């Protein structure tokens, strides 16, 4: 399996780097820390210190502690960083000073910190002011600093804003801190769609309990979710606002109305319908009318996923006798088969960078997540020997993948890096969870 993983041609690799530099529009010096195009990128050692208390209020100290925890967790979540244990710190900038003049860079170099974050918290009445500085102890310089003002209750949002800014400056892409995860969870007598923050916090149910629901899919603006529900005793597609509870029937043709997938520009959805007697993928207008039929083969065609430019569509077809993943060029309507390894390959998810497709492959009752280049090269296994690993969905920066796994017995929602590293539980609620979908970045 591993022999198949190294496939990037050196010239192609250089070309990718070139693209990153050309299109990022950012001073690329910062990318010395994190090169997202490098599949072997090492985690950057970073020291996150407890911010200084800049007001006398007793609460300030608590808020400072809380800030360090949220900042550490959010940075660790990305998989980009290796957080240095605070017990190894030689200094406490929160007490000794948080500016470039006051920080002793040597003491941070000595513990191997490539990056250092200092901060300050000031609470005046209910007004919370926070400042953060990111330093490079080896260059002995400030990378950038930010100050945020809000209410005390905005603490988490303010910290995550800084985390986001850090990721943006170091990778050229906005991070995942302003994203959400939709998934299906069991209720007492059925299933419902739930959503949570990117890190599994703030879980809440958004559809009525005890229905049968499947495949929630965020729309490109990240405010609404298309999903299949049996609310009318048959599988129809509905679109629900994630926040207001507004809900409308999108598609209720006779037979199946399943696996909705938004076009990246929001100009329509693809879905599998069976009103003509065969399970085919159709393109539907935003109003739910049939625009055109995309597939035309006897047997199952299901689970469309568009390339980010909207010009191609990956999907599952049983046309070759077993479910395999195919790619259709939507301009020419030509279709080619993508997967040849394995007898049961489903759930394709096109990566936000457009170069790769994640999917699940089943054999011997186990399922695993694989990633393959859109041209069919570079097959790579991301999970192994851990029950059923299914439903991969990319974070909008392409750095992480959320998926479901039965490695603990029940089916849980896990997250891992796009290279399969740091697999960890994301959602901690009772019952079986499945079919996670990562939202796009909303409102920057």
């Amino acid at each position, binding site marked *: 399996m591993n022999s198949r993983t190294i496939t990037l041609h050196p010239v192609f690799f250089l070309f990718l780097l070139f693209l990153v530099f050309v299109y990022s529009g950012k001073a690329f010096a910062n990318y010395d820390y994190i090169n997202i195009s490098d599949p072997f990128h090492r985690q950057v050692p970073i020291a996150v210190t407890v911010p200084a208390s800049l007001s006398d209020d007793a609460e300030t100290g608590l808020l400072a502690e809380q800030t360090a925890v949220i900042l550490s967790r959010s940075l660790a979540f990305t998989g980009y960083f290796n957080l240095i244990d605070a017990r190894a710190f030689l200094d406490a900038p929160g007490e000794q000073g948080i500016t470039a003049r006051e920080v002793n860079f040597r003491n941070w170099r000595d513990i191997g910190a490539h990056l250092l974050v200092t901060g300050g918290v000031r609470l005046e009445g209910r007004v919370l002011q926070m400042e953060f500085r990111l330093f490079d102890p080896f260059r002995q310089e400030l990378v950038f600093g930010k100050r945020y003002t809000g209410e005390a209750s905005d603490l988490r949002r303010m910290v995550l804003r800084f985390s986001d800014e850090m990721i943006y400056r170091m990778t050229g892409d906005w991070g995942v801190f302003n994203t959400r995860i939709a998934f299906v969870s069991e209720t007492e007598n059925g*299933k419902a769609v739930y959503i949570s923050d990117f890190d599994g916090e703030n879980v809440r149910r958004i559809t009525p309990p005890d229905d049968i629901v*499947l*495949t929630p899919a965020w729309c490109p603006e990240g405010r609404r979710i298309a999903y299949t529900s049996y609310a009318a005793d048959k*599988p129809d597609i509905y679109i629900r606002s994630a926040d207001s509870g507004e809900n409308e029937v999108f598609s209720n043709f*006779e037979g199946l109305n399943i696996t909705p997938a938004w076009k990246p520009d929001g100009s329509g959805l693809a879905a*599998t319908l069976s009103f003509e007697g065969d*399970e085919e993928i159709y393109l539907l207008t935003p109003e739910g009318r049939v625009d055109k039929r995309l597939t035309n083969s006897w047997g*199952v065609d299901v689970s469309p996923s568009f390339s980010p430019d909207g010009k191609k569509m990956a999907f599952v077809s049983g046309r070759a006798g077993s479910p395999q993943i195919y790619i259709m060029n939507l301009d020419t309507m030509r279709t080619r088969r993508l997967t040849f390894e394995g007898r049961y390959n489903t759930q394709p998810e096109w990566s936000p960078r457009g170069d790769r497709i994640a999917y699940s492959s*089943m054999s011997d009752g186990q399922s695993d997540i694989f990633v393959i280049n859109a041209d069919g090269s570079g097959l790579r296994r991301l999970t192994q020997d851990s029950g059923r690993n299914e439903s991969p969905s990319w974070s909008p920066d392409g750095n992480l993948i959320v998926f479901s796994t039965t490695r603990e017995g029940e089916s849980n929602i896990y997250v891992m890096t796009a290279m399969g590293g740091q697999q960890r539980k994301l959602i901690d609620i009772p019952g079986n969870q499945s*079919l996670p979908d990562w939202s796009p970045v909303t409102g920057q």
Partner: protein
Amino acid sequence: MKKCISFGLLLVLVMSLMMFASCAKRPPEPEDYPPDEQPMDIRSGERAEIEAELERQRRLAEEELEGFRDRDLTPEEEAARMEKEMDREAFLESKVYFAFDNSSLTTEAREILLRQARWLKENGDATVIVEGHCDNRGTEEYNLALGSRRAQSVKDFLVNAGVEPSRIVTISYGEERPVVQGDNEDAWSKNRRAEFRLR
């Protein structure tokens, strides 16, 4: 069962009517009246009336019971009714099973479906819902489509056997409604099925 209940109800009805009648029109006690003023005629008249009414009720009840007995006891009718009921139950209990990741009909499935088609043709007013189901292997999305294919295979067969397509509705539940829980071949083989219900 139904017969027993009806009979019981009638008995109760008759008895309560009798009680009601005797309570409501209880004749005055004799000692309340001087002997010469005893309203004998009225009392006997009333009594006769009551007796007549009771008799009518009794007769009515008896007639109705007779009626019941007459109808139920026609052996041919009873047998036909029973058979019809059993046929209906057999139709609803029939299931068609499939191989893994497969929607084609086995020989056994075809035999069952021929019987199903016969019943549908004999019961021309029935509209059937064919449910397609899958085992829990594989992924939910693909299984929804596979369940649809299975239901569609059944529908196609029934239509070829002469049932009007408009009387057959298909619905797929994918792997959402297993009849047997478990991760073994026994559970899987029982869950890969098409079921029938009537609309």
